Structures are given as C-alpha cells and as structure tokens.
C-alpha cells in the first residue's frame, strides 16, 4: 500500500510501511505521529509560558530591579533590564494565553486524545486522518502569530488572556494595536484547530470501537476525552464568534462592545465566559481520565464506581455550561442572576466530590505500586482537592465580592491547572512514554522530578491564597505602590524564589525526556501490566496499529481478579480461566 492510495482507508493494516519520509514524520496523517508532534509543540509552548511566568515573578518579587539577563530585551520591553508596566501587562496576557490555549489544552487533548483514542478503542487510526493533520498544522501558525505580537510595534496584546472589552477594543486604551489583532487571529486559528480535533475524536469514539468495546467498557480516559471533545465543539465556536466581533470592532469600526456606539462591554464577558468556563473543564476532564486509568493500575484494583465516574464526567460537563456568570458576580450584572449562578456553581461540588471519593475508594484495600505515573496521579488528586475546595469560596457571592480579581483566584486556578492538569499530564507522559517511543524513562530522575515539583509547586502557589486574602489584586505591576500591600511583600519574595526553584525542578524532566528518547532501555511490551488494548501491540505501534482488529471481552479495570494467575486481565483475552470451567 502506498501513501497516495489513501493510507487511512478501511483496509489499513499494521505492518509494512512505505510512506515517504515527509508523509511519515512531518505531514503525517497517522494519529500516533500527530500525537507526538503535539507533545513536542505543547511542551515547547509550556516552556515559553513558564519563562514568561519567571519574568512576571521577578517583577513581583523584586519590583523595579533589572531582570537577570534582561538586558538582552529591547528598550520597548525592559530598558536596562527593568520591566516596563506595558511589557508586564503583555507578559501576564501572553502567559495565560500560551498556557491555556497552546500548552495545557494541546498537551491534554492534542497529545492524549490523538495518541490514545484509536489505540485504546482498537481502531487503526482516527475517523478523519487528514482533518487530524490539519488540526496539528493549524496550531503552528496560531502559536507563531500569538508569539509574533511581542515583536510588532506597540508590543503584544496586553489586556489579559480574558481580553475584556473595551480595553481590548482600541489602541487608545492600551497602546497596543497590531499585537491585539494578532492575538485575535491566533485564537481564531486555534479555534479551528480545536474544532477539527474535536470532530475527529467524537466521530472516532462513536464509530471505530472494536467489536465488544461497548460504551461501558471504555477506559475512563477515553470517556473523558470524548466528553471533552463535545465540550470543545460546543464552546469554542462561541469564543471564535466573540473574537470575530472584537476583531471587527478593532479593524472595521463596529461597536459590538463599545458603549459609545450603542455596544455593551458586558456582552463580551458573557460570550467569553460562556466559552471560558467549559474551557476550564476542557482542561481538567482529560486529566481526570488519565488519572483514573493510572490510579486503578497503580492500586491494582478495579476503578471504584465506574458508572458513577462516567456520569460525574457528564455532570461536570453539563453543569459547565450553566455557570459562566460566576466569573461576573461583581461585573455589574443583575445581582439576582448572580444568585442563580451561585446555585449552579455550588452544584459542581457534587460530581467533583463523587470523583474524588471514587479515586480514594479505588485505593482503599488496594496493593498500591508507587511507580512514577502513580506518584504524579496522587499529586494530582491531593492538589486537585485543594483547588476544588478553594473554588467554594469564590462560588459564594459575598466572599467572591472580596476575593474576586485577587491572588486567591490566581492560587485557585493554578491549583486546578498546574496541580491538577499538569500533574496529570506528567503522569500521562511517564505512563505512555514507553508506548510512544519504545523506551523507558529513568525511574530515579522521574521520582526526583515529582518530589521537587510537588514541594516547590506548593511553596509557590499556596502562599498566593494568603496574598489574596490580604486583598492583593492580580495583574498588578508593582504591589509595593499600595500602602496596604507593601507589608505583604516578603510573601511575594518567597513566592518568587519558590517559583524559580519550581522552574529549576523541571530540569530532571527535560534531561530524562531527551536522554530516554535516545538512550533509554528498551521497554517491555506491557511495562505497567495494564489491561488496555494499546499494551497488546508493539511499542511504538506500527502504522495501522493492530495486525488484526482485536475483540474486547471486558472493561479495562479488571485487576486482581480472584482465581487469575496474574493481577491483571487484558481486555482482549478471550475468557478468564475461572469461566472456562463453566
């Protein structure tokens, strides 16, 4: 079979692969290659977003002093290495933009949905491999355009990742013109990429499940990625529409969000958060799915309450569309509306606690193996609990009135997106690295990476709760300007130093990743003794994945089945020994 003759047709079989180099590694339609491409891209953007955070933390910890090595920055950003307020606002904006749109979202959906869905459901590839390729290649111009903002006149977008109108509408207010337009175009292209991916994930899970892979035998990671794709499909077009209107306001002179022409600034917030809240769940649900797989595997026990786990994912996703107004309690929106959004927001605590207690139930009476992915999954669980509980404070309208737009919110979102999403992403990378590259990562380095990250992560983000309770506003260039914030400066210094150490703690990961990529020992077929279908094929799996379409006989969490010789029972093994006796 040649590449020209539709490499993804129904007759695709694993095995001989004579695609030309360019179609194999660059413009590939193979979901595994695309997943790995997303991995490299999102980790690069993660590093960029992290570096921006370091500069932000320098300014907050040591306001007005030159950033070490900052003298290489142009005068428009940091004359003599001292950050300008305009550059600070740009950094805050782009840190959020890069982390959310170009790092965490592609890291969780781009990487794991692409790589895992076909392998875990027993499919040869995605339903629409060419759309899938487009989904990746659109991310390159999107990220590049967003980054280009730093190098145009006026600098990059500086109105926050939330781009509140009318601040984002006009260069009159920020001094930024081209940068904000580039931001809009970048996010619109990102939206297209995300939609193409989502359509693909949904179609694949619905249509390409192997015989016997019923809905209630799907791994929770696949369930989570599937529901995430539905969320993205419904939410991202709203964002794109809102940004197209913003772009029209900027370049065509319309007044969608400008009150001077009859527009309404709050319209932007309603549209943005109608996307923005589901987006938070787009960033956390895949993490929950990955962690569910890893915790069951590490505990050598079936997942506790599989059915309620599935319904909890659906419940979180459904409620996610009814809570956007909790970002707007003090926005000037009708206070009665605030009350209804408080009620719906509080309800999210219910499916969320179902998940947390079920993970604990999974570990209860288990035989817990502390492998590196499991450590990161435990990190996820313990940190996500903090992020979830701190969310209750801001769901309560009167308390939110005080802590809204303070560092309490910054602490909360980082407990969810770093403590939650990123620990899960690390768990996923450590877990499926052997599958992706056929080599094992170094165990000791992985443990050091987890331990140091866990400690410095908490030292960085926990004190932010205290700053927020002291009233410390977010997106603030120089807190020492305020008499009531100046006494809290030692906390800011402590947070900044911890943040630098947190960044340094990623070095073992980077070294481990690249060293293992080339020098790691060859991975056995099923290093974690897992039940899921991807561990029945060689690592890395051949083009087309399965030589023969597998048949599925049971769910993915049959660990420690009584009477079995081993403590795991793969999904495609015909019948357990004890049933053969029947």
């Amino acid at each position, binding site marked *: 079979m040649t590449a020209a003759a539709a490499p993804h047709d129904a007759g695709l079989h694993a095995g001989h692969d004579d695609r030309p180099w360019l179609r194999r590694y660059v413009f590939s339609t193979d979901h595994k290659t695309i997943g790995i491409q997303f991995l490299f891209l999102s980790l690069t953007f993660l590093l960029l977003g992290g570096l921006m955070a370091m500069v932000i933390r320098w300014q907050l910890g040591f306001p007005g002093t030159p950033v070490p090595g900052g003298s290489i920055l142009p005068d428009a950003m940091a004359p003599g290495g001292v950050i300008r307020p305009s550059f600070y606002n740009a950094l805050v904006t782009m840190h959020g933009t890069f982390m959310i749109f170009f790092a965490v979202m592609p890291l969780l959906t781009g990487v794991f949905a692409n790589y895992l869905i076909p392998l875990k459901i027993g499919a040869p590839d995605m339903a629409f491999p060419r759309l899938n390729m487009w989904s990746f290649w659109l991310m390159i111009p999107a990220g590049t355009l967003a980054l280009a903002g730093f190098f145009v006149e006026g600098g990059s977008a500086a109105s926050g990742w939330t781009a509140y109108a009318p601040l984002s509408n006009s260069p009159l*207010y920020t001094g930024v013109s081209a940068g904000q337009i580039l931001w809009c175009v970048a996010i619109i292209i990102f939206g297209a990429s995300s939609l193409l991916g989502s359509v693909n994930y949904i179609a694949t899970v619905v249509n390409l499940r192997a015989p016997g892979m019923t809905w209630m035998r799907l791994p929770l990671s696949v369930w989570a990625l599937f529901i995430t794709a539905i969320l993205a499909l419904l939410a991202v077009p709203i964002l794109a529409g809102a940004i197209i209107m913003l772009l029209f306001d900027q370049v065509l002179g319309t007044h969608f969000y400008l009150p001077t022409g009859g527009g309404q600034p709050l319209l932007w917030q309603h549209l943005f958060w109608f996307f923005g809240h589901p987006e938070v769940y787009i960033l956390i649900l895949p993490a929950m799915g990955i962690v569910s797989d890893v915790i069951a595997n590490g505990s050598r026990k079936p997942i506790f309450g599989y059915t309620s786990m599935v319904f909890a994912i659906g419940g979180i996703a459904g409620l996610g569309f009814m809570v956007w107004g909790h970002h707007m309690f003090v926005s000037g929106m009708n206070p009665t509306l605030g009350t209804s959004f408080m009620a719906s927001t509080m309800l999210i605590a219910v499916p969320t606690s179902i998940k947390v207690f079920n993970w604990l139930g999974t570990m209860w009476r288990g035989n817990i193996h502390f492998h590196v992915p499991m450590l990161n999954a435990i990190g996820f669980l313990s940190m996500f609990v903090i992020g979830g509980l701190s969310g209750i404070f801001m769901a309560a309208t009167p308390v939110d009135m005080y802590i809204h737009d303070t560092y309490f919110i910054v602490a909360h979102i980082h407990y969810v997106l770093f403590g939650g999403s990123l620990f899960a992403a690390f768990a996923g990378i450590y877990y499926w690295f052997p599958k992706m590259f056929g080599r094992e990562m170094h165990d000791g380095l992985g443990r050091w990476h987890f331990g140091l990250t866990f400690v410095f992560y908490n030292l960085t983000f926990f004190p932010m709760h205290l700053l927020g309770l002291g009233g410390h506003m977010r997106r603030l260039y120089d807190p020492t300007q305020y008499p009531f914030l100046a006494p809290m400066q030692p906390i800011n210094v402590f947070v900044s130093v911890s943040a630098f150490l947190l960044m340094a703690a990623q070095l073992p990961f980077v070294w481990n990743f690249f060293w293992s990529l080339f020098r790691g020992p060859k991975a056995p077929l099923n290093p974690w003794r897992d039940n899921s279908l991807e561990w029945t094929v060689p690592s890395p799996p051949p083009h087309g994945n399965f030589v023969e379409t597998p048949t599925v006989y049971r769910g993915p969490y049959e660990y420690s089945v009584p009477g079995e010789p081993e403590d795991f029972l793969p999904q495609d093994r015909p019948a357990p020994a004890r049933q053969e006796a029947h």
Partner: protein
Amino acid sequence: MHWWIPTNASSYGGDVDRIFYIILYITGFVFLVVEGGLLVFLVRYRRREGRTAAYIHGNNTAEIIWTTIPAVIVVMLALLSQKVWSTVKDPAHFPADAIPIGVHVKQFEWQFTMPGPDGKLGTDDDIFRKNELHLVVGRNYAVQLTSQDVIHSFFIPAFRLKQDVVPGMTIVAWFRPILTGAFDLACAQLCGVGHYRMQATVYVHSAEDFARWQTAQGAPATAAPVATDTTMGSMAMPHSGGTR
C-alpha cells in the same frame, strides 16, 4: 507582616467574613478528612509481598452518601450567602437614607463628587476631589459609578466591597463605614498601563472632623478640583483603620 483579611470597617463586612470563616471551617475539615484518608490509604495499602488487592467494583450506599452530603452542604452555603449578597448588591435592599456620591473613573484616576452641606449632588456646594474620598463614620453612602473609558473596579478591601465600573452603565453600590481612619481604594480590574497606580484613599471621619473638613473646603465645586493634599495636611487625621 500582614497576611490575612484586613480588619473589617463596614457594616456588612462582618457578615462577609462570617461566611468566609464558615466555608473555611467546612473546607478545612473536608481537606483534613480527604488528605488524611489519602495518606492513611497510601501507607496502609502500599505494595507488599503476598498482598492482593480486593476485587471490588464499587458500593452504591457509599456513592449515595458522598453524593448527598456535599449536596446538602453546598445548598446550605448558597442559602447563607444569598442573604448577605442581597443585602449588599440588591438595589431593593439599599438603605433609603444613603448619601449619594458621584464616582467617575478614567484611566487612571478616581474623581469623587461629594455633596456639600445640602446633602444633594448636582448643586453648587458639591465638593470635588481626585483620588480621595471623605466620609462620615456610621452614615450610609450610595456611590454612583461611571467610567469614561474602560472597565475599572471599585475595591475597598476594608469594606469587603468590590464593584466593577462599566462604561455605558451607571452602577450604584452602597456601604456604611463603621471605623474611622484612612483606607485604601484600589482598581481591581486590569485597565491599562497605569492600572497598578490607580489608587485612592478613603478617609472616614467622625462627624465633628468631617464638619471641620467640609467647612475648610468652602468654595464651590468648580473651584475645588486642584486642591488636594494642602487641605489634608492641616487636618487632624485619625488613623485608627485596620488596613495599615
């Protein structure tokens, strides 16, 4: 070093703090139970030779318990919050005797128009100040918030009050200071390059102090805008506020 909620200085701030502490105790308890349980499981069920994990798929009673308990708790919290929220934000519950104050904001300045002795806005004796607001302790105030350019946010940490100021809208917020002193007023919404220095001071006077200050202003509003710190210097400013 101060690292906790500043001393409350408004009539409803105590209620806000009470809800905060209720949530803190409940979440603190849940935190200890969950993280404690996690730790116990990690130690007790760690891998050991000869151990086999229990083959359990779930337990419906347990699922019902940990669905119901959080639901009851959050409904209770929502009801508690609702009462305070409507006191603070619902225009139907605003005190009728509140003294109006005009707050007009632009990048990066607060402009306050305070009524003169006649207690009304829009008359000749209005007092105009940039970045400083003068109030009498124990009186109700209704600030009418308008913005000239972008969204700003009217935030007085000691009053526990935050309200965005949106161009094209006039939003009213009320409060009653209960402590005298000087308190910080900050812009809490990113509003541009000078956002970080968009601050003002709220001076809460005793009735006598305020009368002295008001008399010292004398001239009508139109003449006042430039006068700022000079008049303040001669005044005995109480600094009993808890924010410093």
